[in-house]
């Protein structure tokens, strides 16, 4: 009888021990909570408590606000008329002075995943149609339509998004968007020139 009870005792403790998962789902306790969990409002904290207390807090700047050092605002709205007029907007950067290495980094981080390292519209998400992304990202290099696309139109599409592609205004500043476009344009020219050189080489 005693032995059986020992046996069951050991069994239950073992089951309880094994049943305890080692996944840590709670952060534990701290010595000084007001040092660890800031009493001041931190970056992502909800401001709902303020609203409830009747404190007037606006999380976003007044519309039309321009940050210090920000470039002039883009003049057109997100509609078909704006899209049509965007072609007249010129790249405000001094193209020769753009740091193409940094621009390339921005392109690879933000665009390469769809438009491809080689700008051929075949990034890992599309992968010749076998990837998980269902719309084909356009080929920025090698497609006459996009080779000819005005920089301003590209800027319009990057700022507001175009069809399946979303807006990049929250990930790239105005200057960075122009830098990426400068990079795309530099590749387009280079590729076309290389292709031309290639075909002349072949025809000879």
């Amino acid at each position: 009888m005693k032995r059986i009870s020992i046996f069951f005792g050991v069994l239950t403790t073992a089951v309880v021990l094994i049943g305890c998962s080692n996944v840590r789902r709670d952060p534990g306790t701290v010595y000084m909570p007001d040092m660890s969990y800031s009493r001041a409002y931190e970056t992502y904290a909800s401001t709902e408590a303020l609203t409830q207390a009747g404190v007037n807090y606006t999380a976003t700047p007044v519309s039309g606000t321009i940050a210090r050092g920000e470039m002039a605002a883009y003049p057109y709205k997100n509609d078909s008329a704006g899209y049509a007029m965007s072609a007249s907007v010129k790249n405000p950067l001094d193209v020769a002075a753009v740091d193409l290495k940094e621009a390339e980094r921005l392109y690879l981080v933000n665009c390469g995943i769809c438009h491809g390292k080689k700008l051929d519209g075949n990034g890992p998400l599309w992968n010749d149609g076998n990837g998980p992304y269902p719309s084909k990202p356009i080929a920025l290099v090698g497609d006459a339509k996009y080779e000819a696309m005005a920089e301003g139109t590209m800027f319009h599409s990057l700022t507001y998004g175009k069809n399946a592609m979303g807006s990049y205004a929250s990930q790239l500043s105005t200057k960075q968007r122009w830098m990426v476009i400068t990079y795309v344009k530099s590749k387009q020219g280079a590729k076309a020139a290389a292709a031309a050189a290639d075909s002349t080489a072949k025809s000879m």
Partner: protein
Amino acid sequence: MNLQHVLLRRFSILLILLFSCSHSMFAQDIAAGKALFMGKCASCHNVLKDGTGPALKGLEERHKWADHKELQAWINNPAAYMAKDPYTQGLKAKYGSMMTGFAEITLADVDNIVAYINDAAIVKVAPAAASGQAPEGDQNAVLFGIISLVLGVIALILMQVNSNLKRMSDEADGLKTPAPIPFYRRKSNIALMSIAFFVFGGFMVAKGAIGMGRQKDYQPEQPIYYSHKVHAGINQINCLYCHGNAWESKHAAIPSTNVCMNCHKAISTYEKGPKLFDEEGKEINGTAEIAKLYKYAGFDPSNPNQWDPSKAKPIEWVKIHNLPDHVYFNHAQHVRAGNVQCQSCHGEITAMDEVKQVADLSMGWCINCHRETKVNFNYDSTGGNKFYSLYEKFHNDIRNGKMDSVKVKDIGGLECQKCHY
């Protein structure tokens, strides 16, 4: 008699030839159609799924599209076609944007494109997607548990048997043994147990006290089962696509809902990746998790063009890493200037479904790395630290052999006020 036979044979060969000929022509159609479709249509149309434009599967059963002339007229100039056609006006109302015209598309091109669409619409049964398995570690742990349990029970029984046998043999030898004292009342045992208890207890208390306020291994459940393994691992999305602030500021930042929607406007189902499990081993339905994202974003996948990104609600992710207020930590200093990889502090994020805190974020952890890590002086536009190019002294010391390399501690990495406000 033979003639007939030969004729028949010739005829059948001819037939076969004809058939294979037409077959190869057919294949060419599909290839040409595919090239056209990929070049001109695929950015808006998917054969199987709605995108910017409707899914084109079963195209010929809709409207008048069985007549390829109608189709050509539509593709050549959608605006003109739509002006007198209520069906496509209805489509416009549903999909919002206007299809671009392709005036150069000929009737033969249309035949090819439709051939490709019909071919691609036959869903090719994928070789059973590498079926994921429940994490194996857990099963092993259970197995080891059971084995050690059984061994323990056997050991206990053997000990009992042993002492009983000893008593019986003693009795047989006629030796008088005192009535056995149960092991829990033996003095030496009690003394041993209490020492062990104090050592163990003291260790646990000290460990708990040091660990209090530290959250190594913390792995909370998030409002959406969002897997870094699927995004940053399998699909190779760059960390900075979502955590771009790490390059520029103190905070790495968590992406806002609109960043998720950059891709998920189009990706509405989870089907390419492996099966997902949470840490408890429960299977997760990726598509249902994406539907949760749509709820936050206020996005209705059956009516995509009504979406208003400004109405999106923030997702309340649970913060994992949390330094106390009296410590200043800056991502840009480490990631951009210091060229430290995310993984050296956050572990193999690309292999984690749910993020887990890998480092304990103790002061010793920071200091250790600063003692050992060499400063990255090789600055250029993408990294390195121009500021320290002024440290001529170090350069001279290295030249004179007084130092062999410059560690973070030499540039002030151990000074209290650098990390404490």
